[in-house]
Protein backbone atom coordinates (compact mmCIF):
# COMPACT_ATOMS: atom_id res chain seq x y z
CA UNK A 1 0.00 0.00 0.00
CA UNK A 2 2.78 2.36 0.86
CA UNK A 3 4.08 2.31 -2.72
CA UNK A 4 0.83 3.25 -4.34
CA UNK A 5 1.23 7.06 -4.15
CA UNK A 6 4.63 6.69 -5.82
CA UNK A 7 3.21 4.72 -8.70
CA UNK A 8 0.34 7.15 -9.05
CA UNK A 9 2.82 9.97 -9.13
CA UNK A 10 4.96 8.21 -11.75
CA UNK A 11 1.83 7.74 -13.81
CA UNK A 12 0.49 11.26 -13.59
CA UNK A 13 3.72 13.25 -13.78
CA UNK A 14 4.18 12.93 -17.55
CA UNK A 15 0.64 14.10 -18.29
CA UNK A 16 1.29 17.80 -17.87
CA UNK A 17 4.14 18.42 -15.45
CA UNK A 18 6.70 16.40 -17.42
CA UNK A 19 4.87 16.07 -20.71
CA UNK A 20 7.13 14.17 -23.13
CA UNK A 21 6.22 16.27 -26.17
CA UNK A 22 6.00 19.79 -24.83
CA UNK A 23 8.74 19.65 -22.21
CA UNK A 24 11.15 16.80 -22.91
CA UNK A 25 11.13 17.37 -26.72
CA UNK A 26 10.70 13.65 -27.34
CA UNK A 27 8.64 12.06 -30.08
CA UNK A 28 7.70 15.24 -31.87
CA UNK A 29 8.15 13.86 -35.37
CA UNK A 30 5.22 11.52 -35.32
CA UNK A 31 3.17 13.81 -33.07
CA UNK A 32 2.86 16.33 -35.89
CA UNK A 33 2.75 14.12 -38.94
CA UNK A 34 -0.26 11.99 -38.07
CA UNK A 35 -2.54 14.64 -36.61
CA UNK A 36 -4.46 15.68 -39.72
CA UNK A 37 -7.46 13.74 -38.42
CA UNK A 38 -8.53 12.49 -35.02
CA UNK A 39 -8.81 8.85 -36.11
CA UNK A 40 -5.18 8.55 -37.25
CA UNK A 41 -4.01 10.48 -34.19
CA UNK A 42 -5.88 8.06 -31.90
CA UNK A 43 -4.48 5.00 -33.68
CA UNK A 44 -0.99 6.37 -33.47
CA UNK A 45 -1.42 7.25 -29.80
CA UNK A 46 -2.66 3.77 -28.93
CA UNK A 47 0.08 2.03 -30.97
CA UNK A 48 2.80 4.10 -29.39
CA UNK A 49 1.49 3.62 -25.86
CA UNK A 50 1.33 -0.17 -26.37
CA UNK A 51 4.83 -0.37 -27.85
CA UNK A 52 6.26 1.91 -25.18
CA UNK A 53 4.70 0.01 -22.27
CA UNK A 54 5.68 -3.43 -23.57
CA UNK A 55 9.19 -2.33 -24.51
CA UNK A 56 9.75 -0.82 -21.08
CA UNK A 57 8.48 -4.01 -19.43
CA UNK A 58 10.67 -6.32 -21.52
CA UNK A 59 13.80 -4.22 -21.27
CA UNK A 60 13.37 -3.70 -17.56
CA UNK A 61 12.84 -7.44 -17.03
CA UNK A 62 16.14 -8.33 -18.70
CA UNK A 63 17.99 -5.19 -17.65
CA UNK A 64 20.51 -7.12 -15.54
CA UNK A 65 21.51 -9.30 -18.48
CA UNK A 66 22.11 -6.62 -21.15
CA UNK A 67 25.83 -5.83 -21.51
CA UNK A 68 26.44 -2.10 -21.30
CA UNK A 69 28.30 -1.90 -24.63
CA UNK A 70 25.59 -3.29 -26.88
CA UNK A 71 22.54 -2.08 -24.96
CA UNK A 72 21.43 0.36 -27.69
CA UNK A 73 21.31 -2.37 -30.31
CA UNK A 74 19.48 -4.74 -27.97
CA UNK A 75 16.91 -2.06 -27.14
CA UNK A 76 16.37 -1.14 -30.77
CA UNK A 77 15.89 -4.77 -31.79
CA UNK A 78 13.32 -5.31 -29.03
CA UNK A 79 11.46 -2.14 -29.99
CA UNK A 80 11.59 -2.95 -33.71
CA UNK A 81 10.16 -6.42 -33.10
CA UNK A 82 7.25 -4.96 -31.12
CA UNK A 83 6.66 -2.36 -33.84
CA UNK A 84 6.54 -5.07 -36.51
CA UNK A 85 3.85 -6.88 -34.50
CA UNK A 86 1.77 -3.70 -34.18
CA UNK A 87 2.24 -2.93 -37.87
CA UNK A 88 1.04 -6.39 -38.90
CA UNK A 89 -1.96 -6.11 -36.56
CA UNK A 90 -2.92 -2.74 -38.04
CA UNK A 91 -2.52 -4.01 -41.60
CA UNK A 92 -4.71 -7.01 -40.82
CA UNK A 93 -7.60 -5.32 -39.04
CA UNK A 94 -7.38 -1.60 -39.77
CA UNK A 95 -6.16 -1.58 -43.37
CA UNK A 96 -7.53 1.87 -44.16
CA UNK A 97 -5.95 3.62 -41.18
CA UNK A 98 -2.74 1.69 -41.77
CA UNK A 99 -2.53 3.17 -45.27
CA UNK A 100 -3.20 6.66 -43.94
CA UNK A 101 -0.40 6.28 -41.40
CA UNK A 102 1.96 5.16 -44.19
CA UNK A 103 5.52 4.81 -42.89
CA UNK A 104 4.81 6.40 -39.54
CA UNK A 105 3.98 3.17 -37.74
CA UNK A 106 7.41 1.84 -38.73
CA UNK A 107 8.91 5.06 -37.49
CA UNK A 108 7.78 4.31 -33.93
CA UNK A 109 11.03 2.32 -33.86
CA UNK A 110 13.09 5.46 -34.06
CA UNK A 111 10.67 7.54 -32.04
CA UNK A 112 12.93 9.24 -29.55
CA UNK A 113 10.24 8.88 -26.91
CA UNK A 114 10.47 5.08 -26.81
CA UNK A 115 14.24 4.90 -26.77
CA UNK A 116 14.43 7.90 -24.43
CA UNK A 117 12.21 6.31 -21.78
CA UNK A 118 13.81 2.88 -21.98
CA UNK A 119 17.25 4.43 -21.85
CA UNK A 120 16.48 6.90 -19.08
CA UNK A 121 14.06 4.98 -16.88
CA UNK A 122 13.37 1.33 -17.69
CA UNK A 123 17.06 0.45 -17.55
CA UNK A 124 17.28 1.28 -13.85
CA UNK A 125 13.88 0.24 -12.47
CA UNK A 126 11.89 -2.91 -11.83
CA UNK A 127 9.32 -3.94 -14.45
CA UNK A 128 6.24 -2.60 -12.66
CA UNK A 129 7.35 1.02 -12.13
CA UNK A 130 9.01 0.99 -15.54
CA UNK A 131 5.78 -0.01 -17.23
CA UNK A 132 3.79 2.52 -15.21
CA UNK A 133 6.22 5.26 -16.20
CA UNK A 134 6.06 4.18 -19.84
CA UNK A 135 2.27 4.08 -19.75
CA UNK A 136 2.15 7.56 -18.22
CA UNK A 137 4.46 8.92 -20.90
CA UNK A 138 2.35 7.21 -23.54
CA UNK A 139 -0.73 8.93 -22.09
CA UNK A 140 1.00 12.31 -22.06
CA UNK A 141 1.97 11.82 -25.69
CA UNK A 142 -1.57 10.70 -26.55
CA UNK A 143 -3.02 13.77 -24.86
CA UNK A 144 -1.02 16.12 -27.08
CA UNK A 145 -1.82 14.08 -30.19
CA UNK A 146 -5.54 14.02 -29.47
CA UNK A 147 -5.73 17.75 -28.71
CA UNK A 148 -3.88 18.71 -31.90
CA UNK A 149 -5.62 16.08 -34.03
CA UNK A 150 -9.04 17.20 -32.84
CA UNK A 151 -8.28 20.89 -33.43
CA UNK A 152 -6.90 20.27 -36.92
CA UNK A 153 -9.75 18.05 -38.04
CA UNK A 154 -12.41 20.29 -36.49
CA UNK A 155 -11.22 23.49 -38.12
CA UNK A 156 -9.75 21.95 -41.28
CA UNK A 157 -12.75 19.84 -42.29
CA UNK A 158 -15.51 20.76 -39.83
CA UNK A 159 -15.67 17.13 -38.71
CA UNK A 160 -14.65 14.98 -35.77
CA UNK A 161 -13.92 11.28 -36.41
CA UNK A 162 -15.53 11.75 -39.84
CA UNK A 163 -18.82 13.04 -38.39
CA UNK A 164 -19.81 16.56 -39.37
CA UNK A 165 -19.78 18.89 -36.37
CA UNK A 166 -19.71 22.33 -37.95
CA UNK A 167 -22.17 22.57 -40.87
CA UNK A 168 -20.11 23.32 -43.99
CA UNK A 169 -20.87 26.29 -46.23
CA UNK A 170 -20.68 24.01 -49.26
CA UNK A 171 -23.65 22.02 -47.99
CA UNK A 172 -25.81 24.89 -46.77
CA UNK A 173 -24.21 25.53 -43.36
CA UNK A 174 -22.15 28.50 -42.23
CA UNK A 175 -18.64 27.11 -41.75
CA UNK A 176 -15.93 27.50 -44.40
CA UNK A 177 -13.12 25.01 -43.76
CA UNK A 178 -9.66 26.42 -43.12
CA UNK A 179 -7.58 24.30 -45.44
CA UNK A 180 -4.38 25.68 -43.90
CA UNK A 181 -5.21 23.54 -40.84
CA UNK A 182 -4.60 20.38 -42.87
CA UNK A 183 -1.19 21.54 -44.13
CA UNK A 184 2.14 21.16 -42.38
CA UNK A 185 2.63 24.71 -41.00
CA UNK A 186 -0.51 24.73 -38.87
CA UNK A 187 0.75 21.74 -36.88
CA UNK A 188 3.83 23.72 -35.91
CA UNK A 189 1.76 26.77 -34.98
CA UNK A 190 -0.69 24.73 -32.90
CA UNK A 191 2.06 22.91 -31.03
CA UNK A 192 3.89 26.20 -30.46
CA UNK A 193 0.66 27.68 -29.10
CA UNK A 194 0.06 24.64 -26.91
CA UNK A 195 3.56 24.91 -25.44
CA UNK A 196 2.92 28.59 -24.78
CA UNK A 197 -0.41 27.86 -23.08
CA UNK A 198 1.01 25.12 -20.85
CA UNK A 199 3.98 27.25 -19.86
CA UNK A 200 1.82 30.25 -19.07
CA UNK A 201 -0.26 28.04 -16.81
CA UNK A 202 2.79 26.39 -15.22
CA UNK A 203 5.51 29.02 -15.17
CA UNK A 204 8.11 26.65 -13.67
CA UNK A 205 8.54 25.12 -17.15
CA UNK A 206 9.74 28.39 -18.68
CA UNK A 207 13.26 28.10 -20.09
CA UNK A 208 15.95 30.41 -18.79
CA UNK A 209 16.84 33.19 -21.23
CA UNK A 210 20.02 32.58 -23.21
CA UNK A 211 21.04 36.19 -22.97
CA UNK A 212 20.24 38.66 -20.24
CA UNK A 213 20.46 42.28 -21.33
CA UNK A 214 22.65 44.40 -19.07
CA UNK A 215 20.68 46.60 -16.70
CA UNK A 216 19.92 49.83 -18.47
CA UNK A 217 21.90 52.74 -17.13
CA UNK A 218 20.35 56.17 -17.28
CA UNK A 219 21.98 58.48 -19.81
CA UNK A 220 24.35 60.93 -18.23
CA UNK A 221 22.19 63.96 -18.91
Amino acid at each position, binding site marked *: MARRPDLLDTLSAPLLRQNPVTLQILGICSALAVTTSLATALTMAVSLTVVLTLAAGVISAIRAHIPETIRLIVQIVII*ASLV*IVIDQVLQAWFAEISRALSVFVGLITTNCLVLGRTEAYARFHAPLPAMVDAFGNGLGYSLVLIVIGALRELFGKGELMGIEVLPLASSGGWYTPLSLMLLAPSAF*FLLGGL*VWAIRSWRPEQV*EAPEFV*PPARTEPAE
Partner: protein
Amino acid sequence: MSDLWSLFLSAGLAENMPLSLFLGLCTFLALSRRPESALGLGVAMTAVMGVTVPLNQLIYQAVLAPGAWAWAGRPEIDLSYLSLIAFIGVIAAVVQLLEMVLERFFPAIHAAFGVFLPLLTVQCAILAGSLFMVERQFSLAESAVFGLGSGAGFALAVVMLSAVRTRLAYADLPDGLRGLGITFILAGLMSLGFSAFVQVVPVP
Protein backbone atom coordinates in the same frame (compact mmCIF):
# COMPACT_ATOMS: atom_id res chain seq x y z
CA MET B 1 18.80 12.89 -66.11
CA SER B 2 16.25 15.66 -65.76
CA ASP B 3 14.03 13.18 -63.91
CA LEU B 4 16.78 12.58 -61.35
CA TRP B 5 17.35 16.32 -60.98
CA SER B 6 13.68 16.98 -60.34
CA LEU B 7 13.64 14.08 -57.86
CA PHE B 8 16.58 15.70 -56.07
CA LEU B 9 14.80 19.05 -55.92
CA SER B 10 11.50 17.59 -54.82
CA ALA B 11 13.18 15.49 -52.09
CA GLY B 12 15.13 18.49 -50.83
CA LEU B 13 12.64 21.33 -51.18
CA ALA B 14 9.04 20.35 -51.85
CA GLU B 15 9.12 17.27 -49.60
CA ASN B 16 11.60 18.69 -47.14
CA MET B 17 12.02 16.13 -44.37
CA PRO B 18 11.66 18.25 -41.24
CA LEU B 19 9.43 21.03 -42.56
CA SER B 20 6.81 19.31 -44.65
CA LEU B 21 6.99 15.68 -43.54
CA PHE B 22 7.88 16.34 -39.86
CA LEU B 23 10.69 13.81 -39.89
CA GLY B 24 13.82 14.13 -37.79
CA LEU B 25 12.26 16.93 -35.78
CA CYS B 26 13.85 15.88 -32.49
CA THR B 27 17.39 16.56 -33.66
CA PHE B 28 16.14 19.38 -35.89
CA LEU B 29 14.90 21.26 -32.82
CA ALA B 30 17.50 20.12 -30.31
CA LEU B 31 20.64 20.87 -32.34
CA SER B 32 19.66 24.10 -34.07
CA ARG B 33 20.79 26.42 -31.31
CA ARG B 34 24.11 27.28 -33.00
CA PRO B 35 24.87 27.47 -36.74
CA GLU B 36 28.16 25.55 -36.37
CA SER B 37 26.56 22.48 -34.83
CA ALA B 38 23.66 22.74 -37.26
CA LEU B 39 26.06 22.67 -40.20
CA GLY B 40 27.86 19.61 -38.81
CA LEU B 41 24.54 17.83 -38.34
CA GLY B 42 23.45 18.73 -41.88
CA VAL B 43 26.63 17.39 -43.46
CA ALA B 44 26.48 14.18 -41.41
CA MET B 45 22.82 13.70 -42.39
CA THR B 46 23.58 14.12 -46.09
CA ALA B 47 26.47 11.64 -45.93
CA VAL B 48 24.56 9.00 -43.98
CA MET B 49 21.40 9.28 -46.06
CA GLY B 50 23.33 9.26 -49.34
CA VAL B 51 24.89 5.93 -48.31
CA THR B 52 22.12 4.12 -46.42
CA VAL B 53 19.20 4.62 -48.81
CA PRO B 54 20.88 3.03 -51.87
CA LEU B 55 22.45 0.33 -49.66
CA ASN B 56 19.07 -0.56 -48.20
CA GLN B 57 17.61 -0.55 -51.71
CA LEU B 58 20.17 -3.20 -52.75
CA ILE B 59 19.46 -5.30 -49.67
CA TYR B 60 15.72 -5.00 -50.11
CA GLN B 61 15.84 -6.04 -53.76
CA ALA B 62 18.29 -8.91 -53.20
CA VAL B 63 17.00 -10.42 -49.98
CA LEU B 64 13.75 -9.02 -48.64
CA ALA B 65 11.41 -8.19 -51.52
CA PRO B 66 8.61 -10.65 -52.34
CA GLY B 67 10.01 -13.11 -54.86
CA ALA B 68 13.64 -12.24 -54.17
CA TRP B 69 14.46 -15.90 -53.60
CA ALA B 70 13.01 -17.04 -56.94
CA TRP B 71 16.51 -17.91 -58.18
CA ALA B 72 16.80 -20.49 -55.39
CA GLY B 73 13.54 -22.07 -56.44
CA ARG B 74 11.56 -20.53 -53.55
CA PRO B 75 9.56 -17.68 -55.15
CA GLU B 76 6.95 -17.83 -52.37
CA ILE B 77 9.29 -16.50 -49.69
CA ASP B 78 8.36 -12.95 -48.70
CA LEU B 79 10.65 -11.45 -46.09
CA SER B 80 9.48 -7.86 -46.48
CA TYR B 81 8.15 -7.83 -42.90
CA LEU B 82 11.77 -8.02 -41.76
CA SER B 83 12.74 -4.84 -43.60
CA LEU B 84 12.41 -2.64 -40.50
CA ILE B 85 14.99 -4.59 -38.51
CA ALA B 86 17.29 -4.97 -41.53
CA PHE B 87 17.19 -1.23 -42.27
CA ILE B 88 17.88 -0.26 -38.67
CA GLY B 89 20.82 -2.66 -38.60
CA VAL B 90 22.27 -1.22 -41.81
CA ILE B 91 21.87 2.34 -40.56
CA ALA B 92 23.52 1.57 -37.23
CA ALA B 93 26.39 -0.20 -39.01
CA VAL B 94 26.92 2.63 -41.53
CA VAL B 95 26.90 5.25 -38.81
CA GLN B 96 29.41 3.27 -36.78
CA LEU B 97 31.60 2.73 -39.86
CA LEU B 98 31.46 6.39 -40.82
CA GLU B 99 32.48 7.34 -37.31
CA MET B 100 35.47 4.96 -37.38
CA VAL B 101 36.63 6.14 -40.83
CA LEU B 102 36.35 9.80 -39.84
CA GLU B 103 38.15 9.22 -36.57
CA ARG B 104 41.02 7.45 -38.35
CA PHE B 105 41.50 9.66 -41.42
CA PHE B 106 39.82 13.01 -40.69
CA PRO B 107 40.15 13.61 -36.94
CA ALA B 108 39.35 17.31 -37.33
CA ILE B 109 35.98 16.61 -38.95
CA HIS B 110 35.30 13.89 -36.40
CA ALA B 111 35.92 16.30 -33.55
CA ALA B 112 33.57 18.82 -35.17
CA PHE B 113 30.74 16.26 -35.39
CA GLY B 114 31.12 15.35 -31.74
CA VAL B 115 28.17 13.45 -30.35
CA PHE B 116 25.84 13.98 -33.31
CA LEU B 117 27.17 11.08 -35.31
CA PRO B 118 26.05 8.21 -33.03
CA LEU B 119 22.73 10.00 -32.48
CA LEU B 120 21.94 9.65 -36.18
CA THR B 121 21.21 5.94 -35.65
CA VAL B 122 17.87 6.83 -34.11
CA GLN B 123 17.07 9.67 -36.48
CA CYS B 124 13.60 9.13 -37.90
CA ALA B 125 14.41 10.95 -41.16
CA ILE B 126 17.09 8.44 -42.08
CA LEU B 127 14.91 5.41 -41.46
CA ALA B 128 12.04 7.16 -43.22
CA GLY B 129 14.24 7.65 -46.30
CA SER B 130 14.63 3.89 -46.55
CA LEU B 131 10.96 3.20 -45.86
CA PHE B 132 9.86 5.72 -48.51
CA MET B 133 12.28 4.06 -50.91
CA VAL B 134 10.39 0.77 -50.48
CA GLU B 135 6.97 2.39 -50.62
CA ARG B 136 7.71 4.30 -53.85
CA GLN B 137 9.77 1.50 -55.44
CA PHE B 138 12.82 3.56 -56.36
CA SER B 139 15.61 2.14 -58.51
CA LEU B 140 19.21 2.21 -57.27
CA ALA B 141 20.05 5.54 -58.96
CA GLU B 142 16.80 7.10 -57.84
CA SER B 143 17.31 6.04 -54.23
CA ALA B 144 20.85 7.48 -54.19
CA VAL B 145 19.54 10.80 -55.53
CA PHE B 146 16.60 10.71 -53.13
CA GLY B 147 18.89 10.10 -50.16
CA LEU B 148 21.27 12.89 -51.09
CA GLY B 149 18.41 15.29 -51.84
CA SER B 150 16.64 14.65 -48.53
CA GLY B 151 19.89 15.03 -46.62
CA ALA B 152 20.71 18.29 -48.39
CA GLY B 153 17.18 19.58 -47.74
CA PHE B 154 17.54 18.75 -44.05
CA ALA B 155 20.91 20.52 -43.93
CA LEU B 156 19.46 23.63 -45.58
CA ALA B 157 16.50 23.77 -43.20
CA VAL B 158 18.50 23.19 -40.02
CA VAL B 159 21.14 25.81 -40.90
CA MET B 160 18.44 28.38 -41.71
CA LEU B 161 16.59 27.70 -38.47
CA SER B 162 19.77 27.94 -36.40
CA ALA B 163 20.62 31.28 -38.03
CA VAL B 164 17.24 32.70 -37.06
CA ARG B 165 17.47 31.30 -33.54
CA THR B 166 20.89 32.87 -32.99
CA ARG B 167 19.40 36.27 -33.75
CA LEU B 168 16.39 35.58 -31.54
CA ALA B 169 18.60 34.95 -28.51
CA TYR B 170 18.65 38.73 -28.06
CA ALA B 171 14.91 39.25 -28.56
CA ASP B 172 12.59 39.98 -25.68
CA LEU B 173 10.01 37.20 -25.95
CA PRO B 174 7.04 36.41 -23.70
CA ASP B 175 8.17 34.03 -20.97
CA GLY B 176 6.10 31.04 -22.02
CA LEU B 177 7.22 31.28 -25.61
CA ARG B 178 10.93 31.32 -24.93
CA GLY B 179 12.92 28.36 -26.24
CA LEU B 180 10.74 25.56 -27.53
CA GLY B 181 7.57 27.54 -28.21
CA ILE B 182 9.07 30.15 -30.47
CA THR B 183 11.11 27.49 -32.26
CA PHE B 184 7.92 25.69 -33.23
CA ILE B 185 6.41 28.89 -34.55
CA LEU B 186 9.60 29.67 -36.49
CA ALA B 187 9.56 26.20 -37.97
CA GLY B 188 5.93 26.75 -38.90
CA LEU B 189 6.78 29.98 -40.72
CA MET B 190 9.65 28.27 -42.54
CA SER B 191 7.38 25.39 -43.42
CA LEU B 192 4.90 27.89 -44.87
CA GLY B 193 7.71 29.22 -47.06
CA PHE B 194 8.86 25.76 -48.11
CA SER B 195 5.32 24.73 -49.02
CA ALA B 196 5.55 27.26 -51.87
CA PHE B 197 8.19 25.03 -53.47
CA VAL B 198 5.49 22.48 -54.25
CA GLN B 199 4.45 24.71 -57.14
CA VAL B 200 8.02 25.23 -58.34
CA VAL B 201 9.16 21.62 -58.37
CA PRO B 202 7.08 19.06 -60.27
CA VAL B 203 6.45 16.14 -57.94
CA PRO B 204 7.40 12.98 -59.87
